[in-house]
């Protein structure tokens, strides 16, 4: 048994967090902008007005700049499970790889194939066929998100799989349970619709910029109107699904919900306050400077006035017997692996449910070998393991609050925007327009913090209650990590610089930049044939 280098684990976590958060800066815009483009094209097909084609092409161009980096950085994610999380991939690959592979087959292929036609097919497809292509791109990109979140839900709320002592890994036994995991459902809708919000804010903000400058009025007013309506419904949906996710965490991941709410002791319904502000102290296991709103927490989390939410200290105490039992499970498992004896297997089966806690204790066992723990060491190992079952409370607590506050801000902004646009009073509300412009990056911030809440709150596990994070990493040295981290830092900095340069350039140039081309293209009369107008000759 080689011992695990904590430095490698930390660097792997750092690299994964960095690359995932970076990837996730671009994904939400893709998820939303595709459906927004489909909405624009729907109007184009219905009304036949040229301005909607200009809109589809202009927003499509900005979509393309964003999409490229989204695709590129997504490849990184698929590699990293193998390159950096070898033990995780071995332990959970049978379960986790399946949704990823289905994602490729069902969604990514569709999205990527049709996105080429979406950009290049304007003159080769009829309006209806092009609209269908755009819808397929939108569907494809969102189905991609679906399968990724199905995989993610399997990490957070594992179901539809069991541990197999003969192969030393989780093996799936019900794909239906994996796909219809309640966590997957809520998370997918929450994430996808958060993408709609991001896209709506993006379009609304840039349109506001044109209106403020007095340019492209025809174009900007229509874009603003559509984005505001797109955004307000989406924001309502995001908040609803956020509430559903909170309920699910309460049922399946008590440590996460307790950390989100900064709840060290058991709650006292009904008057338990919801903490609007606090500085959680992970070391001392208490909060400083608490400011709370009484009577809110219980109904918010449990949808009832009399249910107690278990606090983190109590959760630690409850974990004690599971840690002892988990250690026994691991000892029996190792014994079974060497002898294949039926008694060892029976012993393992008796403690199987707590195996993950045994893995957690491995970190504190002498020589990282649970079999070497003596009678009198046991209590000290259990005591050392106990605090490990909690996530970083400060991070989880605050990222959740930032996300929530931002989502309320979006609600306000979209509601005002939609109202003012429907009343046709946009150019008299410069303050609102400026707020829209400045709010463009905020949904990206909100989705990032949402992601941090979900994944930091999942710690210390990669597979909740089964496999701890520190055990999941690959067994290579620090130098490998330095090499890859340096490369990522360099490449990703270049990417973001190039993308921002182009985004600003084309947003400033505006749709009039390629207007002359659009004029000449509009002379084409499109026949009703679904497939093709002029062939390529």
């Amino acid at each position, binding site marked *: 048994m080689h011992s695990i280098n904590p430095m490698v684990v930390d660097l792997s976590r750092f690299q994964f967090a960095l690359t995932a958060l970076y990837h996730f800066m671009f994904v939400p815009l893709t998820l939303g902008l595709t*459906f*927004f483009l*489909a*909405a*624009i094209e*729907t*109007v184009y097909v*219905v*009304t036949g*007005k040229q301005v*909607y084609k200009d809109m589809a092409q202009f927003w499509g161009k900005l979509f393309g700049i964003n999409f490229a980096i989204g695709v590129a950085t997504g490849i990184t994610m698929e590699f990293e499970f193998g390159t950096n999380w070898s033990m995780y991939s071995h332990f959970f690959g049978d379960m986790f790889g399946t949704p990823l592979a289905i994602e490729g087959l069902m969604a990514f292929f569709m999205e990527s194939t049709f996105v080429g036609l979406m950009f290049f097919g304007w003159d080769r497809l009829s309006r209806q066929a092009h609209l269908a292509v755009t819808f397929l791109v939108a569907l494809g990109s*969102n189905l991609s998100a679906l399968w990724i979140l199905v995989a993610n839900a399997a990490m957070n709320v594992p179901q539809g799989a069991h541990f197999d002592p003969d192969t030393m890994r989780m093996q799936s036994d019900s794909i*239906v349970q994996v*796909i*219809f995991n*309640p966590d997957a*459902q*809520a998370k*997918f*809708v929450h994430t*996808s*619709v958060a993408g*709609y919000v991001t896209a709506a804010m993006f379009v609304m903000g840039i349109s506001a910029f044109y*209106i403020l400058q007095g340019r492209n*009025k*025809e174009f*900007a*007013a*229509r874009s*603003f*109107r*559509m*984005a*505001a*309506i*797109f955004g307000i*419904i*989406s924001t309502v*949906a995001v908040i609803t*699904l956020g509430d*559903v996710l909170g309920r699910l965490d309460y049922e399946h991941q008590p440590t996460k919900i307790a950390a989100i709410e900064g709840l060290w002791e058991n709650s006292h319904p009904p008057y338990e306050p919801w903490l609007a502000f606090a500085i959680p102290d992970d070391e001392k296991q208490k909060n400083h400077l608490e400011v709370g709103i009484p009577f809110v927490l219980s109904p918010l989390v449990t949808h009832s006035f009399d249910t107690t939410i278990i606090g983190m200290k109590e959760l630690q105490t409850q974990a004690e017997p599971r840690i002892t039992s988990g250690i026994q499970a691991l000892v029996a498992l190792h014994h079974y692996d060497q002898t294949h004896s039926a008694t060892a297997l029976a012993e393992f089966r008796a403690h199987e449910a707590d195996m993950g806690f045994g893995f957690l204790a491995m970190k504190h066992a002498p020589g990282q070998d649970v079999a070497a723990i003596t009678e009198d060491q046991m209590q000290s190992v259990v005591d050392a393991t106990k605090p490990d079952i909690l996530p970083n409370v400060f991070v989880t607590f605050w990222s959740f609050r930032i996300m929530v506050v931002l989502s309320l801000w979006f609600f306000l902004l979209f509601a005002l925007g*939609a109202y003012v*646009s*429907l009343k*046709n*009073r*946009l*150019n008299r509300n410069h303050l609102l327009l400026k707020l829209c412009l400045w709010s463009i990056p905020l949904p990206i911030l909100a989705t990032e913090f949402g992601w941090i809440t979900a994944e930091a709150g999942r710690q210390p596990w990669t597979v909740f209650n089964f496999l701890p994070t520190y055990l999941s990493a690959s067994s290579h040295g620090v130098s490998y990590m330095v090499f890859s981290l340096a490369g990522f830092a360099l490449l990703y900095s270049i990417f973001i610089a190039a993308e921002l340069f182009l985004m600003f350039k084309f947003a400033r140039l505006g749709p009039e930049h390629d207007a002359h081309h659009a004029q000449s293209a509009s002379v084409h009369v499109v026949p009703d044939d679904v497939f093709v107008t002029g062939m390529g000759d």
Partner: protein
Amino acid sequence: MQLVRMVGLALAVVVALLFAVFVGDQGPWYFAWVVGTVMIVLTASAGAVLFEAQHQGSEVKDI
């Protein structure tokens, strides 16, 4: 041709119904996403169509 189109439409309706029954039962939120997304797209489109109606015949001045 007409018949083929009718059969195609009928098939699409059957698939949609089966999807609604199965997914609506197993995964209500997935179903909600499908319905909700279509609604969001169509409502946003309706907003644009309303815009056209509001400004019909006149040049766009007040936006």
